[in-house]
């Protein structure tokens, strides 16, 4: 007859070595570095550099709007559990400081735009009224230039290598592969834009997030709202933008995945400018969408621009 004590003892002899073995196996493989990126595009960069060694989660997921994002307690929990937090910086994540403090996290906060020369937000040379316009503040959407994306990647690579020296070679290898892809992408963008006639390189978007794209590749973007999506356009703003399209003969109007598409359609129908598809700015789409990765996002935007502007 098996006593209870015997049963427990035998169970232990079976279980304990199993647990130890399991721990050993996990230790040999090393648990991935837990990282947090504030939004989906940044997370994509980290994923490409970190590969299997890094487990990255984005706080503002696909299709989310980081401008009006409100952190939830589960986000604070994610941040608290992370070894490193990647942020865009340049004022993009106004909510982040409080979140990091609230989560009592000690993880280093890595600013991925370090070394990027910021351009001013807004477009002063256009007479667009921007209620919350703030001179001297940098435009945070630096990733819209592929050259800048390479700086993001280099910063992420260095940060990961410093944090996890054992994986330095891996990070450098995958960063090099990815950087080569970005170089090819940069050439592709320049090739396509060279085919657009110079007088058609003017477009209107609902959310002015393409300042870096504009200064890198020479397509001029204007928005009816300021650089931020937080303000509601007034009749005066809309009238200004329509007057401006008529005067500048802007060739196309683009919708975006984060702002009011009804307003854009109205402006387009009133000015006769072509309505382009959706240009993605601040967020990737989910896997089934048009832009699940950064490279796909830039390619998608490029295709939309080419379709509307090369006629």
């Amino acid at each position, binding site marked *: 007859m098996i006593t209870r004590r015997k049963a427990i003892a035998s169970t232990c002899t079976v279980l304990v070595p199993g647990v130890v073995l399991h721990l050993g196996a996990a230790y040999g493989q090393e648990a991935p570095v837990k990282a947090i990126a504030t939004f989906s595009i940044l997370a994509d960069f980290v994923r490409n550099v970190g590969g299997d060694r890094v487990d990255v989660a984005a706080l503002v997921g*696909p299709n989310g709007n980081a401008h009006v*994002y409100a952190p939830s307690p589960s986000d604070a929990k994610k941040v608290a559990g992370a070894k490193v937090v990647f942020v865009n910086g340049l004022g993009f994540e106004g909510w982040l400081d409080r979140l990091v403090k609230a989560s009592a996290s000690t993880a280093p906060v890595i600013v991925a735009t370090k070394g990027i020369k910021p351009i001013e937000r807004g477009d002063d040379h256009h007479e667009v009224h921007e209620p919350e316009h703030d001179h001297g503040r940098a435009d945070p959407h630096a990733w819209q230039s592929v050259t800048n994306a390479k700086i993001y990647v280099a910063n992420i690579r260095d940060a990961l290598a410093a944090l996890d020296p054992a994986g330095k070679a891996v990070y450098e290898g995958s960063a090099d592969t990815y950087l080569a892809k970005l170089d090819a992408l940069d050439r592709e963008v320049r090739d396509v834009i060279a085919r657009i006639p110079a007088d058609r390189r003017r477009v209107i978007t609902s959310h002015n997030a393409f300042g870096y794209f504009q200064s890198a590749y020479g397509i001029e973007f204007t928005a009816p709202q300021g650089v931020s999506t937080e303000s509601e356009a007034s009749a005066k703003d809309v009238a200004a933008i329509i007057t401006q399209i008529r005067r500048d003969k802007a060739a196309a109007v683009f919708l975006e995945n984060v702002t009011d598409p009804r307003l854009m359609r*109205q402006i387009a129908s009133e000015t006769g400018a072509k309505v382009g598809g959706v240009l993605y700015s601040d967020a990737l789409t989910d896997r089934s969408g048009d832009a699940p990765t950064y490279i796909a996002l830039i390619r998608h935007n490029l295709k939309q621009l080419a379709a509307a502007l090369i006629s």
Partner: protein
Amino acid sequence: MFDLLIAPFTEFEFMRRALAGTLALALGAGPIGVFLMLRRMSLVGDAMAHAILPGAAIGFLLSGLNLFAMTAGGLIAGFIVALLTGLVARTTELKEDAALATFYLLSLALGVTIVSIKGTNVDLLHVLFGNVLALDDQTLLLIAGNASISLLVIALIYRPLVIECVDPGFMRSVSRAGGPAHLAFLALVVINLVSGFHALGTLLAVGIMMLPAAIGRFWARDITLMIVIATVSGVLAGYVGLLLSFHTGIASGPAIILLAGVLYVVSLLFGRVGGLVRQLFPGRHLEA
């Protein structure tokens, strides 16, 4: 003068559309607001707006900024709340205001829950605040259609509605039309709020309904005249509000409601019927 008052509308199509939209809204919402006010249901519009919001939000989450889905969602949510409220108020001890409060709060909580389960924080602001500057053909037709239906139905149920306003007890003793008329009226409130939320957003839609009604109250004792004044002041607030937004850069929806607010304050002070100045200096009034 022409530049100030007319040119914005001749030059820009979106201004013409915005004007047509607000005019239609004011026409439909004016009479409804007056009846709501006379029946001491002024806050019902606000409660109903909250009840509609979750339906519209669900429609928005299912199919984006789709006119049909958002309208259908709003109508369904609004009708369910209106019907349940009517049923509970007429069959149990609970009074109408309490019944409405419970159902609209439940509806609101349900909507917020569904939105949060769905996850993405895509701008729900567009559901909360419509855009009067972006009225396309479909939306305009919807608003105009709703206004027409409202006016027709009000014409049909005008008598029972008025009698129930002034003497519900009498109404119950002479006719059974009170119940159905009441439900039809609540349905009108819902469809007007739904068209209002496309143009002004759920929250401000109530403003174009109730403020003109309150203005009318200060100028007329007669219900017909009250409705006329309410409608006219709604139209006026819409027109001047759009101009204000055009010339000063204030967001359009709030500009319209604030303009109505200014008219209200003026009426409150100088209104012929119970205005504050009249109450303080009644002498001349008595002589006349």
